[in-house]
């Protein structure tokens, strides 16, 4: 009874607290634990019941010996059914390995994401204010600005389309 011993070893309270589980997961876990307990209790009760039948007594009391014989034959033929749980256990093991692997992968992904977010946060915190931004930096980030400037100037256009509408006209006339 390997599964049973494993179930006994599990510290249910610790699972919830150490993993920091919440809500539906906790409820599901508790339901699972309750089912486990119930089944175990039932097994206990059933195994404590007497399993021998006094057929000699029945044979002396009852007239119809054939029925008793029949029942005795059936009774001695009865064997408790045994379930081969090794396949399920194997499946559970595979599932567990898979789950652990998934969890590891998720952890790595979350770690990477965290690092990225921390980098972004540091970037945001160390960024200079917008007032300090220079044209050279913008042009370095967006090379098309220099290209556009050269194109406009070489075509003899000295105004940027849409600029006046957005930033207003500083003309004093």
């Amino acid at each position, binding site marked *: 009874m390997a599964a049973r011993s494993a179930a006994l070893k599990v510290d249910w309270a610790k699972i919830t607290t150490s993993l920091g589980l919440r809500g539906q997961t906790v409820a599901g876990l508790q339901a699972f634990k309750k089912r486990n307990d119930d089944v175990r209790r039932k097994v206990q009760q059933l195994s404590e019941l007497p399993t021998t039948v006094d057929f000699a007594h029945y044979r002396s009391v009852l007239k119809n010996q054939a029925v008793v014989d029949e029942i005795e034959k059936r009774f001695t033929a009865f064997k408790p059914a045994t379930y081969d749980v090794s396949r399920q256990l194997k499946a559970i093991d595979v599932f567990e390995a898979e789950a652990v692997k998934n969890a590891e992968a998720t952890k790595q992904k979350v770690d990477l994401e965290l690092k990225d977010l921390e980098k972004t946060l540091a970037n945001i915190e160390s960024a200079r204010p917008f007032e300090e931004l220079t*044209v050279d930096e913008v*042009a370095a980030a967006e090379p098309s600005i220099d290209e556009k400037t050269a194109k406009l100037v070489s075509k003899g256009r000295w105004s940027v389309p*849409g600029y006046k509408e957005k930033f207003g006209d500083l003309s004093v006339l």
Partner: protein
Amino acid sequence: MPQLVPFYFVNEITFTFIILAITVYILSKYILPRFVRLFLSRTFISKLLG
């Protein structure tokens, strides 16, 4: 009037035209394109911000 005495006319006009030509060259090559560049980067930034 002293400014009508022709002795230095050529000198004056030479200076004027040389300086005006240099000014036009420097303005159109270096100074005015900087304004266009500034306007372009402003429009670019404002497009980024939405």
